[in-house]
């Protein structure tokens, strides 16, 4: 091993040059007070930080009330977190029946267990990895919905809160991405102009229309397009809209990934006699998708946030429950607390995923130089 390569780290980056250690005073001179306008900016920024942090601290912790009843909140200056104490079960599971709540908790624990296990590389490389995930998803669905193994059925109108937020976005992506890959394949093949046109039409149509309109359309128009006898579930309608949007967006992402795979790969695959599906499935798509993983992860964040729009069609996801809580006569006017709580949940989820995506991006970065 020669010395010029072993100094690189796992990602092929050169380590930073050895120590230019600044003392705290010198560091402040350079990073905060190097010019007069930077000093002014620093003072201004310090003031903003001071006001925000002390304000949030006083409002959210120092003057706040933690409890489960509305009475102690009368006339206090701080936050009334009792609304969260009273409603947290609804935030987690919506109007799911009290005596069946353990099923939702069990489902959450299963998902968290699988997510944690997935951080272990040996498990990810296991042959049955994907199958285990599929089985896990099935178990979660059966647990939540019921109907088998003596579990009573809980209809989707009792579902709500975080359950819907996570469910809509992950099912939307899990079903939408394979459809999107097919759409992208249809769009990039030149031998089938009719299918290509239809794929382009679908992708462009869905992508140009706001997601909220897709939701409204699928909840108002979809029942109209089917015989009156079919009574479609409200959650299913919203799910169809998410799947359509996920399919169109992931088709566009996959197209970018396909364009990044060199022509030589296609030619080599054809030369060894693979047919179209094998060429795509064995040679091209694995390379394309590998580079697209970070983009798919960012898409997941966008979907996580966009599912909050289902409030408009009358479903109670996290945000819907926040509205529900602040309209409850007991907790009237406690909008800020409810919204803050939901905002913190969203922020933690999205920030964690986006940081993970950044790490993936660094890992999978294609070096073209």
């Amino acid at each position, binding site marked *: 091993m020669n010395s010029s390569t072993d100094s690189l780290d796992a990602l092929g980056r050169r380590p930073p040059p050895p120590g230019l250690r600044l003392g705290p005073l010198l560091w402040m001179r350079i*990073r*905060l007070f*190097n010019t007069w306008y*930077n000093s002014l*900016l*620093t003072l201004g*920024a*310090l003031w*903003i*930080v001071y006001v925000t942090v002390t304000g949030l601290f006083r409002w959210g912790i120092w003057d706040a009330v933690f409890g489960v009843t509305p009475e102690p909140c009368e006339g206090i200056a701080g936050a009334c977190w009792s609304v969260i104490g009273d409603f947290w079960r609804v935030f987690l599971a919506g109007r799911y029946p009290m005596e069946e709540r353990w099923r939702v908790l069990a489902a959450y624990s299963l998902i968290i267990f699988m997510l944690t296990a997935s951080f272990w590389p040996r498990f990810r490389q296991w042959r049955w990895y994907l199958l285990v995930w599929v089985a896990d998803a099935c178990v979660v669905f059966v647990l939540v919905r019921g109907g088998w193994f003596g579990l009573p059925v809980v209809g989707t109108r009792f579902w709500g809160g975080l359950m819907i937020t996570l469910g809509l976005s992950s099912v939307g992506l899990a079903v939408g991405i394979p459809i999107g890959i097919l759409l992208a394949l249809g769009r990039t093949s030149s*031998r*089938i*102009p*009719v*299918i290509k046109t*239809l794929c382009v039409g679908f992708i*462009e*149509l869905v*992508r*140009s*229309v*706001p*997601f*909220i*309109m897709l939701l*409204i*359309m699928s909840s*108002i*128009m979809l029942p*109209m*397009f*089917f*015989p*009156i006898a079919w009574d479609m579930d409200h959650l299913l309608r919203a799910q169809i809209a998410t799947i359509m949007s996920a399919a169109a967006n992931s088709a566009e992402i996959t197209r970018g990934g396909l364009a990044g795979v060199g022509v030589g790969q296609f030619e080599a695959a054809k030369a060894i006699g693979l047919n179209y599906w094998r060429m795509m499935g064995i040679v091209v798509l694995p390379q394309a998708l590998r580079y697209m993983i970070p983009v798919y992860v960012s898409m997941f*964040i966008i979907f996580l*946030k*966009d599912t*909050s*729009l289902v*409030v*408009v069609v009358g479903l109670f996801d996290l*945000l819907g429950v*926040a*509205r529900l809580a*602040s309209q409850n006569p007991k907790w009237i*006017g406690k*909008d*800020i607390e409810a*919204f803050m709580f*939901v*905002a913190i949940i*969203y*922020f933690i989820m*999205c*920030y964690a995923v*986006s940081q993970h995506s950044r790490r993936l991006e660094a890992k999978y970065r294609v070096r073209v130089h």
Partner: protein
Amino acid sequence: MARRPHHLLYTPRVPLWRNRTVRYAAYQLFFLGSVAWGIYSMFANAQENLRSRGIQSGFSFLYNTDSLFVISETMPVPVPEGGGLFFLVVLSGGVVGTWLLSRWAEARKIHMGDDNRLVTIAVGLLVILPGLVLYSTGHTIRSVEYIVPSTYGMGMLTGLMNTLKLGFFSLIFGTIVGLVVGIARLSSNWLVSLLSGAFIEVTRNIPLLLQIFFWYYAVLRTLPPVRQSLKLDAYLILNNRGLTLPRAVGTESFAPFMATAVLALVLIFYWARYVRRRQNRTGEQLPVFWPSLALLVGLPVVVWLLLGRPFTLVFPELRGFNYFGGLTLSPEFAAMFVSLVLYSGGFIAEIVRSGIQAIPFGQIEAAKGIGLSWGKVLRLVILPQARRLIIPPLTSNWLGTIKDTSLGVAVGYPELVAVGGTILDVSGHSLEVIGLTMLFYMLTSLLVSLLMNWYNTKVQLKSR
């Protein structure tokens, strides 16, 4: 075994069902057939369902004066007839004429910006001629406003105007916020960079609808009622009905005032062009900013002094339960505007940051090395190079912002989707209303992507 003729020796015998052309045609026919059947049966069902509810399909309902619901925010829409139509024709004629001119120049291998005569013709077609038409016939332009009862078509148009109004202001201010925060994120000042980072992460990682709800229900709705409005004399009145400002009403000298402002813009354009060409020719630099400011402020002020003030302020008055006569920004608009600006600002900041960071650091060091100030480094070295990388994601972000205005439906801001939804409920013409709404969004995204492609081909590095 009989010998086959030589030229047929290697001809493979492909059965019909393995012939590539036949197979692909069959696949496509099958696919097309199933899609067509699916769409047909869906439409048949829709027709059936609509007929059972007694709804006639067709677009004629747009013209019937039976729209009885109230739209909380309306604005006068100019009617394309008489002076308005004339202006529209002249303006679109100017655009088409300029386009033809540029094609003509392209065919002659002339760069249009290099030819003084061509530039003058273009300015004349695009600005001077429409401006003259507007100046002379402006008073004949008639406008209509949605007042109950009105037509459904007028309702849709009002929704469209509200979408455009919200989209326009959010785009401009969102871009400014994004540019400032994105540059601040890369500041050498540690605290400023940290604060902008916090802004970016918070605005990007919280759903837009949650931000809208926060501003609407938690902030604006908790403002005092009309009687206890927060007031800054009569200039600024803030209450839970919105923000009320004095309205500017044009007087007789308004038209000449605006005309000189436009004239100043044209002069600035020529001055900047002259300065640039002179610098290219001789290397000598002339000031641009201060003369431009002097022109832009000076000429209209001269008109103001000669002809009297161009507009008067009409102050809002408290009559009954609300303020009347002023310019009111509704809480719905304000909530949408603030959250859209912050949300898209966060995303644009990230786009700007990554665009700037993609520039090789040597460029910045070199620019500093030849003694340019930080502002000039930014203006002359960084932004022109970063622009190529920033513009494509920026346009798709703009498109996203225009689509995001549709979230107004959640707080009752009467934009296209909200008004469309009401009309759909009231009239039952769901297919037509949704079709029209989709048409608008598709046209917008088509237009934006066309503009973007055109711009991209212009700014991309020419590799020779």
